[in-house]
């Protein structure tokens, strides 16, 4: 009985914290989606694991500006979803391979594969983190304009999620962070230097 409690109580604590965090992220995603003009049912995806990453990709796609290495627009929804799922999939495969590695003789091959897969997993997690950060930056750039760089840095230096949480709070509840009416953030910055154009614009 005591052993069962020792297993169950930490699991319940973990589950409660996980649900609470997801709930808070869901509310933040809802507010940000409203600000970014997403009015369909997908704005509630923030309340669910994995789907929240899909929503992140969808929000990132609102920004039309391309990164220098993008030849054309990327499907950030799929990229973010794959990034969030990849860790779980790799962990499952590694678990199975580790189980298989106890088989005599053949198990050695499986353990070798699991070592290489582990190294590959590190590389994949790097790439996924970088891509997710780029997707987040697209949201920051669209909503916060010139404040986007320090927001990105904040979400990077308080890795993995405290910085992002703070930035999402700012974006969701900060009144000055909203979708620009007819300019992309860099255009807003540029517009300051061309008063002549501003005066002549139709």
């Amino acid at each position, binding site marked *: 009985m005591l052993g069962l409690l020792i297993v169950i109580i930490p699991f319940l604590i973990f589950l409660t914290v996980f649900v609470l965090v997801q709930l808070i992220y869901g509310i933040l995603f809802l507010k940000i989606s409203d600000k970014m003009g997403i009015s369909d049912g997908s704005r509630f995806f923030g309340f669910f694991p994995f789907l929240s990453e899909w929503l992140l990709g969808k929000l990132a796609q609102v920004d039309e500006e391309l990164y220098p290495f993008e030849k054309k627009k990327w499907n950030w929804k799929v990229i973010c979803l794959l990034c969030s799922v990849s860790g779980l999939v790799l962990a499952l495969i590694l678990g199975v391979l580790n189980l298989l590695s106890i088989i005599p003789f053949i198990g050695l091959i499986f353990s070798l594969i699991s070592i290489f897969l582990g190294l590959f997993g590190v590389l994949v997690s790097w790439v996924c983190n970088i891509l997710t950060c780029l997707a987040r930056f697209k949201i920051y750039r669209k909503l916060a304009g010139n404040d986007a760089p320090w927001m990105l840095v904040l979400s990077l*230096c308080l890795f993995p999620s405290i910085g992002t949480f703070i930035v999402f709070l700012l974006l969701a509840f900060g009144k000055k962070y909203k979708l620009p009416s007819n300019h992309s953030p860099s255009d807003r910055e540029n517009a300051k230097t061309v008063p*002549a154009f501003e005066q002549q614009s139709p």
Partner: protein
Amino acid sequence: MGVLVYLARAFGLMTVSGKLGVKNGWLGFIPFADCWLLGRLAQESDAQLKPDEKRRPWGKIYLWLSILNRAAAFILIVLFFVLFFLFFSDIGAGISNSFREFINGAGIGDVFEEFFLPISENLTHLTSLAFVIFFGCIALVFLLAIASGVLGVAEVFVRLYAEYKVYDLLAGKHAVWMVILSAFVSFAQPVLLLILGLSSAFMPKTSEQRWSNERFKPVQTVSNEAKDADTEETACKSAEDGAFPSDGAQSRGEEEK
């Protein structure tokens, strides 16, 4: 590997300093001074990209943060040794006894003994003053650990922000993925600095050069056309034709609605 990374970072900082016209690029080879140099490069980036805005002394901020962070870490290590010493040896008890005698001589020992001896009697190795030192050290360790954590985060923030500013000045739009790469891959920063410093493709751009990009050209063209035609109608027609990318996108959005 460590020496290679150190050399790459130092050479990178030196060459980038040369490009941006910042003096004393050799400071990149000296620990702590390299922090000041990176901050100074960020200041130079601010001066060139945002000449109208208030300049922040990034060099001094980064230097002081790194010094304070290292100092906190050093004191933390020393305190750990003190704790280890007090906890695992009888010498701690001997030292505390001599201190207690000194306090008794001063006439305030009774007060201390009244408070601390009943507690310390239950401890095998720790006497009253050792007890105070021991728990004082623990409290200090906690405080310093928190301070070190906050300083560490602040230092990383300033480092990444300074890097972003340097990348922004030299590489423009590439700055975003460069700073993300620097955050995740430890040896990326020296390599990127070296590439930025050595490659002639990355040169500091003035604000005018940065704003004369492809996206902005149509806007200039439209304004000229509008000026030539000297009518509002021409300008409106150009805008509908897609000369204003964002306005065009907005009107497309309205049509879809």
